[in-house]
């Protein structure tokens, strides 16, 4: 891939300025698209030095040291741990290097504390809120079929990502809160972490199905990977054939999930706009590296939190094409 600054390249000697970037986890399925969009946007514009932080914040801090030592003119940082933003700014500020955080939002106060720091991405809670809205909408529309025990309450099980991971925490909290806000009563039958992992999700689902069988009315997953794992378990238990059905939702709208949505095995997912997030990040970082105004020559606007917002999109059967276009 084109991720390197070239062997021996320090970024000082060639025409394009060097932008140092860290991705919180290279093989995260969403981030891999952001990465591609970044690589595309960087072509002929800046020299992009990409690093894989392997889901380890201290590794990322070290990579920032390396990038600064290599002469990065600006930094594009996808934090592992949003609270570590201050430490990164502390490293960049003395050298007067601008920092564009993306995808994981730092505290507003931290961002405001350095005039050359910006954020590109969504609001962390938004995916949860949108997922909650989607669940509520689907529930209201299919209540007669899906409320199996006809008690008017939604009995759900929830597959959580890695505990303590900001996305896992936000999605879990806001999805359920939003459903409740919409006036729907809920019962949580079970909630357990499957660590973002499809296999673990299958196995948790096996146990829950054995325990609750027909009492489960909804499966909420923090990401599509776990949703797919749950679907594998549901299929094994005879769901999705005949009239046995279970609504499942995820987040990320990965291709496999789109396929499931089309086949009617999944209610929907939440698409994070990877292309625009990646593009905006590089555009801001490139401008910063060149010493220009960060928004110069772009379509983006900053909100009052020094952030460029790239919204999430709900994807279900009705607008599946939106999801598919994201993978064109």
């Amino acid at each position, binding site marked *: 891939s084109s991720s390197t600054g070239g062997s021996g390249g320090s970024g000082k000697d060639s025409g394009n300025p060097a932008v140092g970037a860290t991705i919180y986890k290279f093989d995260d399925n969403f981030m891999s698209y952001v990465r591609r969009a970044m690589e595309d946007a960087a072509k002929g514009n800046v020299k992009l030095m990409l690093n894989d932080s392997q889901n380890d914040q201290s590794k990322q801090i070290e990579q920032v040291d390396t990038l600064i030592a290599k002469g990065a003119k600006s930094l594009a940082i996808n934090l592992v741990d949003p609270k570590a933003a201050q430490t990164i700014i502390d490293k960049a500020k003395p050298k007067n290097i601008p920092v564009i955080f993306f995808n994981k939002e730092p505290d507003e106060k931290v961002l405001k504390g350095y005039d050359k720091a910006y954020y590109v991405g969504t609001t962390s809670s938004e995916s949860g809120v949108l997922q909650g809205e989607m669940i509520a909408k689907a529930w209201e529309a299919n209540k007669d079929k899906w409320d199996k025990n006809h008690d008017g309450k939604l009995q759900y099980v929830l597959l959580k990502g890695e505990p303590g991971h900001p996305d896992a925490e936000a999605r879990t909290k806001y999805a359920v809160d939003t459903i409740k806000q919409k006036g729907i009563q809920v019962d949580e039958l079970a909630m357990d972490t499957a660590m973002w992992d*499809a*296999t673990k999700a299958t196995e948790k689902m096996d146990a829950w199905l054995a*325990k609750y069988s027909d009492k489960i009315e909804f499966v909420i997953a923090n990401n599509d990977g776990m949703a*797919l*794992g749950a679907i594998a378990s549901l299929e094994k238990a005879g769901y999705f054939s005949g009239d046995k059905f279970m609504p499942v939702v995820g987040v990320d709208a990965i291709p*496999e999930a789109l*396929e499931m949505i089309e086949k009617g095995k999944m209610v929907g997912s939440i698409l994070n706009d990877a292309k625009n997030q990646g593009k905006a990040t590089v555009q801001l970082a490139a401008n910063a590296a060149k010493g220009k105004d960060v928004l110069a020559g772009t379509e983006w606007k900053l909100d009052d939190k020094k952030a460029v917002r790239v919204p999430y999109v709900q994807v279900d059967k009705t607008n599946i094409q939106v999801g598919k276009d994201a993978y064109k």
Partner: protein
Amino acid sequence: MATKKSNISKWLFDNVIYVFLVLLVIGIVVASPDFLSMTNLINILSQSSSRIIIALGMAGILITAGTDLSAGRMVGLAAVVSASLLQASDYAYKMYPHLAELPLIVPILIAMAVTGLIGAVNGVIVSKLHVPPFIATLGMMIGVYGITSIYFDRPPYGAQPIGGLSQSFTTFAQRGIPVGQYEIPYLLLYAIIASILIWVMWNKTQLGKNMYAIGGNPEAAKVSGVNVARNIIIIYMIAGLLYGFSGTLEAGRVGSATNNTGNMYELDAIAACVVGGVSLSGGIGTVPGVITGVLIFQVINYGLAFLGVSPYIQYIVKGLIIVVAVAFDMRKHAKKK
């Protein structure tokens, strides 16, 4: 009388680990009587199946006083390779858009050949370059992850789970033989077949005896004319083949694969082996022990989730049970002579 009693207690002592498994199940049933169902039994057995296959490969290596940290990553590689070659022909996001649907056996054999080869390389590094197994397989673990990631994270779709597996593949891993209202999962059959083959290998063939000898006293094996290097290479290779097969099962079972499939399975496998009585210093281990070790872990995992224990508490309880299980088992060695 006295001797009869002491015979029973001796038997209990020697088989503490089986007793522990039974006690564990009883404990969960007491906490939640509806745990006692055919569905749960089938679930636990089928979840244990691919782990048993991995653990048997690992156990062979442990018995030679080796270790294999690359097991989980090999499972992942095999899962990714087999899944990529077994996507349904009508699936929109195929890794190889123009690949026809292959007969099931071909991708499985390819995946196994790849991991078998990697296993053999592990064996060569250990036996010919004299690199300690921990380091040899640590290097391999890191390297294989890189290879899997490169294979996985490619155009056209990048780092996306490889899904849309063909019907034949998912049937192979998810279905079973109908018996009354239940299905005996194929997975369980594969595990049983693998266990029998491995049992025969360990107990009835020269390779097996050599394996115990190499782990028990490598010097003795050498001066008795055993070709230590060759045996070690074969044993690591067999482990690789088993991981590879298990990797294809993982892909089929879950219906998709990523470069993170199998992550850390080696730790589970080693732990299950040790709980099942395999000695990390080599020379000791049995097939039933390994199977029991895996079952104990799976009963804990499944049981805690079934009981609805909160996730954080699950960790604490699981940690505790593991230590207690082995502490009991160790009492037979502990007594001062």
